[in-house]
């Protein structure tokens, strides 16, 4: 067996799980919303997957751009950085719409009660918009800061962003659910 792989693998898992349990606690605390808005639980795994994938690919692109020198390691909004941010935000919106539609479609397909097409779509859109603003900002700042410190963002950012994505996404879903429930949808 590889001793180093075990040590590094366990370190990654322990840090990641210790933070991610907060996402789990968040999900347990929002069971009222899960009950009130049937179909919401369907979007949870997809939503977390999307957040991790979008944040992870952004970090990975920025990391390459920093290594190659296309983006300067300073917190300045250059054209290259702007294109990355715009692309990430549009991608989040497109996929949020898809996730909302999929949740309702799965309810229809498997005969579950759905909170309604519009409700699930809005839920996904609001949560997607909120979480993508937070995650994009955090990813850009952290990746540049990590690089400034002389560390390699390629190695560090992946697990950090997927874990942070979970912890940010759950409260955003909760917040979006509260907004929709307050509107009486």
């Amino acid at each position, binding site marked *: 067996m*590889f001793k180093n792989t075990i040590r590094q693998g366990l370190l990654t898992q322990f840090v990641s799980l210790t933070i991610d*349990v907060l996402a789990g606690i968040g999900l347990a605390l929002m069971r009222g919303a899960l*009950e009130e808005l049937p179909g919401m639980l369907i979007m949870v*795994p*997809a939503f977390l997957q999307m957040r991790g994938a*979008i944040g992870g690919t952004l970090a990975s692109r920025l990391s390459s751009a920093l290594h190659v020198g296309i983006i300067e390691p300073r917190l300045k909004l250059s054209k290259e950085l702007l294109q990355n941010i715009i692309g990430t935000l549009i991608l989040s919106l497109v996929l949020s719409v898809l996730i909302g539609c999929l949740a309702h479609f799965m309810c229809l397909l498997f005969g*579950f009660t759905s909170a309604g097409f519009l409700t699930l779509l809005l839920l996904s859109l609001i949560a997607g918009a909120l979480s993508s603003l937070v995650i994009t900002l955090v990813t850009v700042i952290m990746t540049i800061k990590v690089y400034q410190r002389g560390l390699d963002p390629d190695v560090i950012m992946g*697990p950090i962003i997927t874990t942070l994505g979970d912890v940010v996404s759950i409260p955003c879903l909760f917040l979006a659910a509260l907004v929709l429930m307050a509107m009486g949808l």
Partner: protein
Amino acid sequence: MTVYKAKDIVKQGTVSITASVVIDSFAGTVLNAKLETLLTLPVLLILIPCLMDMTGNMGCMIGSKIATYLHLGLVRPKIERSPYLEKYAVTMIVVAALSSLYLTFLAMTASYFLGLKGVEPVKILIIVLVTGVSTSVIAIIVGVVAGFVTYRYGWDPDNTTIPIVTAVCDVIGALLLISVALAVGLI
């Protein structure tokens, strides 16, 4: 002209992430089928993101390791015995088992502080251990196959293996979580 174009980022991202999001909707559907049970046993809700995170991390490590082995030529994209892969697989299973123990401890601690009822430590341990270890075994198999297939097609396995492995693991993880919870009589 900029090197990065928002349009390309959207176009390329849509294909791979859309596929993983569609697969992951099935994971959500499996959980939704047992929504009422999950609402009465919130410890399982705590476990959902954590188990998916844990197997996702396994998928990332396995996916990028296989890509590296293929690029270095240490492993050939063929179904044959490979000492590197076998050693790596055993290592990953050990990591999965130890991480499962830790996750059980975390979930028990969180349940205690939230004052959740019906949490039976031994049953939770069995659920997390069986789900965590079997999903990791599946992550290894799917990772190897996805890595081989994409490599033989001339694509970079670094781009494809991770989203496929993590999404498939989420579905299997959700199925196992519910099935093992039923098998040990927790739900």
